[in-house]
């Protein structure tokens, strides 16, 4: 039964029907997956710093993050003998990493070479076979998260965004709601019913019904937050506030989620240990930590993947920034993952190994990586993985 129909039945049976947790059949303790998309192509080389590479320091004279030096808070935080973490993540993701709840996959990304934000984002979100892209006609109506929701039992998908992202496009209607500003309920049940009825038989009927219903659910979930806020003078802001709300909804109701974060397109003055990129990554790190806290006991059943459309040029440009590149660094976080390591295929960070003498190469294709992750997380069959990522070769990075 489709979620909407279920909601409909329950609306008839019990007037105030959608109390958190009752709507979905997914058993408590079932896996949760959240995709965090950093839109704009974040400069991964200044977040997971290849500090053993002399070439990194040579080609980033103004923006390189200093080598780890133990006590110095301005330097990178060593993870192993090659890689170090941006100091802006010291109090957030670095702590998760130390608890083996975070790992990084450098040289990750897509085969798309347009270096266009918009094409590459769409390409990743559609997740279709490379052959479709070469012919230039991907099916724009089918995103990989929607296909994932189609093969996972009790998927309960949701996008925490203003509009429905490309990755959730598909035949089933998947709800979305932005958690940035959630106000008081506007319509009572009678008014909502009349509004819904206007769209009976219309192709927007599912969106209208879901939208009105979801608005009520979220308002209820937020009531708790408001109570807490009135006691606590330090209310979180920005992404941290959103991430807390995501955590609450995914703890109680939803199993497959999507959220995006913007502001990563650092062509000019991106900074190094401090500055524009560091501020943005600090906010992201704090948000992810808040999410893990809000999920509580369910954090151990949760996996979060942080991705971006591409990395940036390995060398800094003429304006103390970086331009569009290729390979990126993906992050996997979760309460019971096999973390605390830098995973996947790697190569030395030297000029010779750069892709087209400019960018990180892609050695860990994202469909292979995520396909392998999904197979392990839900125990999907090879056929199911192929439904999510057609013509892909899943790689098991032993994340779970």
């Amino acid at each position: 039964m489709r979620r909407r129909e279920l909601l409909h039945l329950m609306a008839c049976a019990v007037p105030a029907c959608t109390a958190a947790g009752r709507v979905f059949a997914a058993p408590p303790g079932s896996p949760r997956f959240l995709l965090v998309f950093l839109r704009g192509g974040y400069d991964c080389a200044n977040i997971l710093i290849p500090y053993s590479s002399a070439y990194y320091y040579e080609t980033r004279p103004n923006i390189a993050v200093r080598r780890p030096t133990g006590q110095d808070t301005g330097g990178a935080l060593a993870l192993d003998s090659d890689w170090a973490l941006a100091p802006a993540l010291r109090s957030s993701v670095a702590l998760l990493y130390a608890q083996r709840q975070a790992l990084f996959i450098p040289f990750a990304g897509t085969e798309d070479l347009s270096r266009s934000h918009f094409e590459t984002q769409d390409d990743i979100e559609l997740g279709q076979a490379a052959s479709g892209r070469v012919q230039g006609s991907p099916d724009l109506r089918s995103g990989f998260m929607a296909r994932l929701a189609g093969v996972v039992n009790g998927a309960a998908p949701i996008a925490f965004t203003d509009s429905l992202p490309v990755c959730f496009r598909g035949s089933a209607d998947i709800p979305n709601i932005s958690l940035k500003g959630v106000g008081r309920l506007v319509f009572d049940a009678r008014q909502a019913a009349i509004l819904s009825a206007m769209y009976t038989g219309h192709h927007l009927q599912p969106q209208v019904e879901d939208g009105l219903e979801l608005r009520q659910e979220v308002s209820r979930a937020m009531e708790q937050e408001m109570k807490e806020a009135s006691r606590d003078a330090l209310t979180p802001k920005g992404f941290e506030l959103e991430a807390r709300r995501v955590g609450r909804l995914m703890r109680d109701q939803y199993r497959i989620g999507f959220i995006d974060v913007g502001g990563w397109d650092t062509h000019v003055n991106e900074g190094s240990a401090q500055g524009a990129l560091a501020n943005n990554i600090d906010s992201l790190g704090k948000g992810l930590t808040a999410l893990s806290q809000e999920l509580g006991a369910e954090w151990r059943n949760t996996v979060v993947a942080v991705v971006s459309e591409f990395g940036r040029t390995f060398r800094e440009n003429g304006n103390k920034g970086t331009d569009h590149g290729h390979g990126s660094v993906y992050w996997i976080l979760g309460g019971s993952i096999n973390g605390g390591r830098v995973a996947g295929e790697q190569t030395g960070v030297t000029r010779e190994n750069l892709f087209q003498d400019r960018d990180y190469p892609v050695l860990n294709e994202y469909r292979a990586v995520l396909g392998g992750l999904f197979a392990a997380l839900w125990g999907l069959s090879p056929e199911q993985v192929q439904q999510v990522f057609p013509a892909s070769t899943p790689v098991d990075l032993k994340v779970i």
Partner: protein
Amino acid sequence: MNRLGSIAATGLAVLCAAGGGPSARAAGATLSREDALWLERVTYGLTTATVSEYLKLGRRRYLDEQLHRRDPRLPPQIAAQIDALQVSHSSASQLLLAVTQEQQRINALSDDAAKQADRKALNEQGNHMAYEAARRELLRAIYSQAQIQEQMTWFWLNHFSVFQYKANDAWLVADYADTIRAHALGHFRDLVIATLTHPAMLQYLDNAQNAAGHLNENYARELMELHTLGVGSGYTQQDIQELARILTGVGIDASGREPRLKPQWQKLYRHEGAFEFNPARHDAGTKTLLGKTFEPGGFDEVERAVDLLVSQPACAAFISRQLAMYFVADDPPRALVEKMAKTFRKTHGDIAEVLQTLFESRELSASLGTKFKDPMHYVVSTVRLAYDGKAILNTHPVVNWLDALGEPLFGRQTPDGYPLTESGWASSGQMSRRFEIARAIGAGNGGLFEPEDGSAAATTGFPQLSTRLYFSAIEPFLSVNARTALDRASSQLEWNTFLLASPDFNYH
């Protein structure tokens, strides 16, 4: 008579008793369903003045007026509001110079607290400038009779999108919009050059910082991908880098002081308003773009590059398709796009001619009533219907509604512009938000008639949507679902909300 009937009848009676309404000639004629739908598509929504103009001129002459004469005929009260705006009396270069000098003064302050306070004040001024720009755009969208020109101004502002929060763009967006309006129905090539040399774009996509030896390819990439050719049309990463080299030295100087240049560079130096071409920053080597060799020169390299881009068949096809997506369908018929592209090539990118092809096409007629209104169309059409030419005194509520629906003017952070398709605006979260805005507009309490200078407000209640205009151009064509909902309304507020939330009103 049920309650709804009595509300509607009151509205009509009031209007008739006041002797308002269209001219006698127009009053006699009536709109067919097809006329009403056509007008809904071609304009930002029906008003009494638009309907009467259409009935007076007929479709062909109405279209001709829209495409070629473009007389805005703003109501005097609206013209006076626009004239009172600061942005209506300052050029981009004046504003840029003022803000740059103020920033220099603030940076030189030694007192940190004073620095912070002055910076905050300057930011607020910038926000106010951008608000004035948005206010002017909205007043024109609502009240100008040149409705296609206004929609095209929005369309190109979105196509050549800039973001008010990048650098000093807040101070420049008003001028940018006017620059675009001047070319909105002219030649596409002029539009590209006008945006390329505008300081708002030069700041937004960083070309102001693109110089020989300090290459920044941000603008060069988007100029091909988003502005002229479209992604996947055959250009390469190498072309992007070569175009970036051609664009080195295209930048900003608000001071008006010519730099000291070597003699051989002086004749290549260009300066107009805040735009500057500085040959000292220009890459003097030979470049190759799309297979064509560019011998070293000055700004003429840029002009030749733009000529080359806009004469590509890919450009004609890309721009035609974008226009057809905006005015006809999310996935426009290929035959229509080909017809438009042919006109584009034949007329060297005459936008009015391309639109003539579009508006006279069978494909447009076949699509009437099926295009989902983006938030701009939605909000402007509600205000046009609800206040029907009566001058609003405060534009803040309109700006806020657009914000809430996710499509503020000058507010798109990324250079791709807002989506032109239904799927970008009709998700579940967006539909529920839209209904909430429908209620806010229907409640009429947003402060539209509280003057922005703080003087005493006129008392207003709910907007009367059930007017003569409603009964002549909307009510006869309502769907059964919408009628049923309107019949169930228990108050004027609910009735307004349901009408504005109905599928009938959300498509055009």
